[in-house]
C-alpha cells in the first residue's frame, strides 16, 4: 500500500527554488519594460539636446548637469517647486483631517440621511474632472482666490477626497464599539474620543491618504493649468514642465531635467512610506 502511494505522487519538473528563480527573472524582465520610459527620461536629462537623438543608448557618454541648472534657474522650476510644495502640503493637511472626520461620522454613526449622503459622495466619482473645472474656477473667482496659490490648494483638496472618505469610513466601521464605550465611561467626549483614540488608531489609513493625496496634488495638471493660466508666477511643476514645449522648439533636455526634479520627491516619499501605504490599502480591502 505504502509503495503504491509513493508512486502516485507526481514529481514536479523543477524544484520550488528553481521555479522561484524563473518567476523572479520573468518579473524583472517585465519590470524593465515598465520603467523604460522613466529610465529614458533620467538618461535624457543628463544629455545635451544634440546627444539625446544621437542614438547612443541609455548611459550618456558625456553626462552633464547643465539641463538641471538651466531648468532650476532660467525656467523658474525652482519657484514652481516651492509653489507645488505649498499646494501639496496644504491640500494634504486639509484632505487628511477633513476626510478622517467625515469618514468617522459616516463609518460609525447612524443618522437619518446617511445613505443619501454616501450615495451623493460616491456619485461625484463618476463626474469627470473636465466638467467641474469651470464651476470650480468660477467658485474660486467669486471667493477672490481665483488667481492665487490658495485657490489652487483649495481646489486640489476637492479632487479626490471621496475614495479617502470611504477608506476612513470602512476602517472606522470595523473598530470595536467597546473602545468608544470605554471612552464614554471615562467621560471623554465625541471630539476628544475621535482625536485621542480613533485617529491615532487609523494610522495605516492616514499614511495611505497622505501618500495618495501627495501624488494627486503633486501631479495634478488640468486644474493648476486653468487656475494659473493668467498668472505664470504661481504655476506648479506639472504646468511648468509643459512650458518647455515651445511653438517651434521643444527643449527636451530641460523638460526631462524638470520632470526628473518633479518626480524625485514623490519617489522618495513612497520609498519611505511604502510599507505603511501597502498595509493601509490591504487593511481597507480586508474590511
Amino acid at each position: 500500500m505504502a509503495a503504491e502511494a509513493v508512486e502516485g505522487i507526481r514529481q514536479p519538473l523543477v524544484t520550488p527554488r528553481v521555479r522561484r528563480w524563473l518567476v523572479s527573472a520573468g518579473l524583472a524582465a517585465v519590470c524593465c519594460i515598465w520603467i523604460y520610459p522613466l529610465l529614458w527620461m533620467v538618461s535624457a536629462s543628463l544629455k545635451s539636446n544634440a546627444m539625446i537623438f544621437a542614438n547612443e543608448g541609455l548611459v550618456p557618454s558625456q553626462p552633464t548637469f547643465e539641463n538641471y541648472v538651466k531648468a532650476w534657474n532660467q525656467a523658474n522650476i525652482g519657484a514652481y517647486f516651492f509653489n507645488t510644495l505649498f499646494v501639496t502640503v496644504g491640500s494634504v493637511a486639509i484632505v487628511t483631517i477633513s476626510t478622517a472626520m467625515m469618514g468617522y461620522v459616516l463609518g460609525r454613526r447612524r443618522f437619518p440621511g446617511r445613505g443619501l449622503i454616501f450615495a451623493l459622495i460616491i456619485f461625484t466619482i463618476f463626474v469627470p474632472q473636465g466638467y467641474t473645472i469651470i464651476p470650480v474656477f468660477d467658485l474660486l473667482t467669486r471667493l477672490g482666490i481665483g488667481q492665487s496659490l490658495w485657490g489652487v490648494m483649495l481646489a486640489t483638496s476637492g479632487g479626490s477626497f471621496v475614495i479617502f472618505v470611504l477608506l476612513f469610513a470602512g476602517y472606522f466601521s470595523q473598530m470595536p464599539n467597546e473602545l468608544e464605550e470605554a471612552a464614554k465611561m471615562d467621560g471623554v467626549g465625541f471630539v476628544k474620543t475621535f482625536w485621542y483614540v480613533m485617529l491615532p488608531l487609523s494610522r495605516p489609513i492616514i499614511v495611505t491618504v497622505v501618500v495618495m493625496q501627495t501624488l494627486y496634488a503633486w501631479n495634478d495638471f488640468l486644474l493648476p493649468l486653468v487656475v494659473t493660466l493668467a498668472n505664470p508666477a504661481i504655476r506648479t511643476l506639472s504646468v511648468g514642465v509643459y512650458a518647455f514645449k515651445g511653438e517651434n522648439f521643444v527643449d527636451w533636455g530641460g523638460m526631462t531635467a524638470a520632470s526628473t526634479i518633479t518626480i524625485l520627491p514623490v519617489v522618495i516619499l513612497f520609498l519611505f512610506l511604502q510599507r505603511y501605504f501597502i498595509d493601509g490599502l490591504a487593511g481597507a480591502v480586508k474590511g
Partner: protein
Amino acid sequence: MSGLSLQSVKKNYGATPVIHGVDIEIEKGEFVVFVGPSGCGKSTLLRMIAGLEEITAGDVYIGDQRVNDVDPSHRGVAMVFQTYALYPHMSVEQNMGFGLRMNGRPRQEVAARVAEAARILQIEELLDRKPRQLSGGQRQRVAIGRAIVRDPEVFLFDEPLSNLDAELRVATRLEIAKLHRQLGGSTMIYVTHDQVEAMTLADKIVVLRKGVVEQIGAPMDLYDKPANLFVAGFIGSPKMNFLDVTVSDGSVVLKDGSSLALTGTTKAVPTVLGIRADQMRLASAGEGAFSGEVSVVERLGDAEFVYVRTAWDQEIVVRVEGGSNTPVGTTVGVVLSGRTHFFTGDGLAIEGLSLTRN
C-alpha cells in the same frame, strides 16, 4: 459607596421588548451576579446601569439619585468590558489615566491614582507596556485598574473572564473576590453565563431568563430552594435531574411504575421530581427507587459522575466517591437518599413536600 435600585426597568429594541420590567434592589457593598443563558438580557441590563443603553421605561437609582438621564461618566460607575477595550496605542499607564487626564485632573493626582491602582493589582512593572505586549490576564488587570482609578461607587463587570483560559479564569475569579474585600466592599455587579462564577463570587445572585428575573437570592438559597424548574436546572453542576411523575394516593409514581410515598401536604399537584446528583446513591440492581444501566462514567478524581440510563430511556447522573470503578453496562439501583424538589406542571417549586424515608 452606594446601593442601587432598579424599578420596573424595561428595554425595547424597536418594537421588540428584551427586558420585561425588572425590579432589583442592591445593597451597598454587595457583590451581585447577574446570571443567565445567552440572550437573557443580563448584559443589556448592565449596560443600562452603565448608561450605554437607554432605559425604555422604569427607573434606575444609584444611591438615592435617579440616573436614567445622567451621562455615563457622571453616574459614579466604572465598567470592565469582556474584550478589555484597552486603547491599543497607549501604554498601560496612559490607558489607566486617560479618563482623568481628559477631564483636566492635575498631572500629580492622575499619576498618584494610577500608581495606587497599579499597586493594588500588582501591575507596577507593566505600566510602560502597550496592551499588545501583555498576556490576557494582565490585560484583564489593566482593564480593572482603569475602573479602580475612577474610584467609582459601583463596579460593573461584563463577563470579564470569558476571554481567559480555564486555569487563568479560576485564578482571576479568586483575585476579583479578594479585590472586592480589598476595595472596602465596593458595590459590584458582575455579569456571567457561568453559574460556577455566580455561585463562587456572589453575595446575591439574580437569575435572568428572556428579560425576566426568575429568582433573586443568596447562592445557597438558590441552590437549596430554587423557585422554579429553570433556576433548579441552571444553578448547580451537574444539572439537577428531573423525573416526570404522576400522583396517586399520596405517592408519586415514576414512569416505570415504581411508586414513592410522599410526606407533607399541598394543594399543588407535583408533575416533576428534581434531585441533584449528590443526593442519590447507587445500590445493587433491584434496590432503591428504580434501576438502570450505567452508560458513561466521568472521573473527576475526588468524585465520579455516573450516568444511568433508566428503563424509560432517560439519563440520570449520580455523583459517587472517586475510585468506585463502576463498570459501564452494569445494571444498578438508584436510591433517592437526599433532598428532593417538586415542581408543578407550570414549573413552579412546591414547598413542604418530600419523599417518605423508610
